């Protein structure tokens, strides 16, 4: 199959959605002539014009809010927040408006919008351009949270998010934009809330999100040579979570390692661990549930410190190996 980068896959998804449905439009900072800070929207202005591709002033509150307003009045907005860090300036509109409008108004309306944003560290951009804030949104009923880990899912999940009648927080990863993978040309969807088994294995279940899926797959290759088989599970949608494939995997392996980039305290791993421990999968556990997460620190600038602050392939390999051998 044809290969695209993650950024190209997202762009193709946007282009197809905009061509298929006049209500779909994009807005954000530097998404027009510049093509977006990471190039995702490159070419869309030329193709669709400035009544479908809106370059905004630096005003994150109104980017989020305008998406909500447009969604409430018949449009299908896809907003872009240049770096996930800046969504902190949009929080009121997202948390207190977008997430609650449908419920508060007795289910009589809905907010069909998508807000895309790149999260994560690894580019040397330091503490204010490297956040992994997904759990802020996971904690707000009414928002959906999606984190694609590869080009195929990026396009398919984006198209499903645009179709979805709810506000969807769509979290991309800066280091994934240039990664390549097979992407079909048609307008396929990857349903939201569909957990994927990224690699089958029998010894340890590794539940990972976003770029950590790729790192876990690399660790799995290394460990396979040692006779340790990891089963790598990618939730893809953090909320609402399709939990059964995760529980089924843990029932099979009896061991669970949860990996994410965000700091551990208050992170998504705690939710996953609680879901596993609170289910019948608990009876199958042969070891404590382990978490490998970003450290509870802001992301430092220095290259070595930055690497040390979040899980790397070697860390996953080491932790999974220990768990497989019962050395935790």
């Amino acid at each position: 199959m044809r290969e695209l980068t993650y950024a190209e896959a997202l762009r193709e998804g946007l282009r197809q959605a905009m061509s298929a449905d006049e209500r779909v439009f994009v807005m954000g900072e530097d998404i027009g002539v510049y093509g977006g800070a990471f190039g995702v929207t490159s070419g869309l202005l030329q193709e669709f014009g400035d009544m479908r591709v809106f370059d905004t002033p630096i005003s994150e509150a109104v980017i989020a809010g305008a998406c909500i307003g447009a969604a409430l009045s018949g449009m299908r907005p896809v907003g872009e927040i240049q770096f996930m860090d800046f969504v902190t300036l949009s929080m009121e509109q997202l948390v207190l408006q977008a997430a609650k409008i449908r419920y508060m108004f007795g289910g009589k309306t809905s907010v069909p919008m998508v807000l895309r944003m790149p999260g994560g560290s690894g580019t040397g951009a330091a503490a204010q351009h490297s956040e992994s804030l997904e759990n802020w949104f996971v904690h707000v009923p009414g928002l959906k949270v999606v984190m694609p880990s590869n080009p195929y899912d990026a396009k398919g999940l984006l198209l499903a998010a645009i179709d979805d009648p709810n506000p969807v927080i769509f979290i991309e990863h800066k280091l994934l934009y240039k990664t390549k993978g097979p992407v079909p040309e048609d307008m396929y969807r990857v349903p939201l809330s569909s957990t994927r088994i990224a690699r089958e294995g029998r010894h340890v279940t590794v539940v990972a999100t976003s770029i950590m899926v790729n790192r876990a797959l690399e660790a799995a290759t290394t460990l396979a040579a040692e006779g340790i088989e990891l089963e790598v599970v990618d939730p893809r949608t953090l909320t609402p979570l399709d939990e059964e494939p995760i529980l089924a995997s843990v029932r099979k392996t009896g061991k669970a390692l949860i990996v994410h980039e965000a700091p551990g305290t208050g992170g998504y791993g705690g939710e996953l661990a609680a879901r596993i421990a609170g289910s019948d999968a608990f009876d199958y556990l042969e070891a404590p549930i382990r978490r490998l997460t970003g450290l509870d620190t802001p992301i430092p600038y220095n290259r070595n410190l930055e690497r040390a602050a979040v899980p790397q392939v070697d860390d996953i390999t080491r932790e999974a190996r220990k768990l497989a051998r019962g050395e935790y």
Partner: protein
Amino acid sequence: MNPSADYLSTMLRIRAFEEKAEELYALGRVHGTMHLSIGQEATAVGVSSALREGDFLLNTHRGHGHCLAWFGSDVNLMMAEFMGREAGYCRGRGGSMHIANVEANNLGANGIVGGGLPMAAGVGMSIKMRKTDQVCVVIFGDGASNEGAFHESLNLSSIWKLPVIYVCENNQYAMSMDIRKSANVEDISQRACAYNIRGITVDGNDLAAVHDAIAQAAAECRAGQGPVLVECKTYRWRGHSKSDRQLYRTRDEVGEWQRRDPIPRYATVLGLTDDQLEAARKDAQQVIDAAVVFAENSPEPDLAAVMEGVYA
């Protein structure tokens, strides 16, 4: 203002620092990104030259010049921070976008557009409550004036008469966004009107003009007649950051502004010959070369210390 060769050498030092920064990046000796203020040096030096030691500074991602021009700044510690070393101003944790020199009341550059603006009001409150005659200067870009934070901060400073000088470094663009497309006012200083404070626009490439405007604003703030909004119109010669293809402006436009280089312009004010200017330029470059040696000889942060300093 009285002309001073020191101001010229500070501008030259900023220019040399950033040219070196660019070179180090191209050689792969630093990672991350950076925002260069080449062409805007007169604003940085004009602002600090009109203030006093003990005043406060909050500035931006494009902040190398602001920091270098501030009181008692040490170019070695700047370079070490830029290169991520333990000896740097922020022990290698902050990097290019987050250089602060808190001992000198330089409260830091900011990775968040408009991030310094609300805090400036708080510094102004503190000055007022402590009854000192300090002022707080907050530097921000044209793009930042479109954030809600700008408007909330100006309003609060206005109603409480806070000693804050708002310096808008209007280099005409916010990344790719032309200020003429993102704001429907000719001058950002017009926005002062909405908060009933004084607003003024000056040529940001004219060191003396910036200096005089800031000196007057500071005098007003110290007399309890602040805040003031000072807009300095200038231009960045380089791309927004290291990944900018600059499709939103023409080479001619850049060239036109390069002819308004603030450095030779100020050399003329000082009555220097071309040779004298070149000699001063060489001196600045030597200082920067020495700073690179200093930075490279200082250790990388200890990995075991990664969790250190999260809490006081």
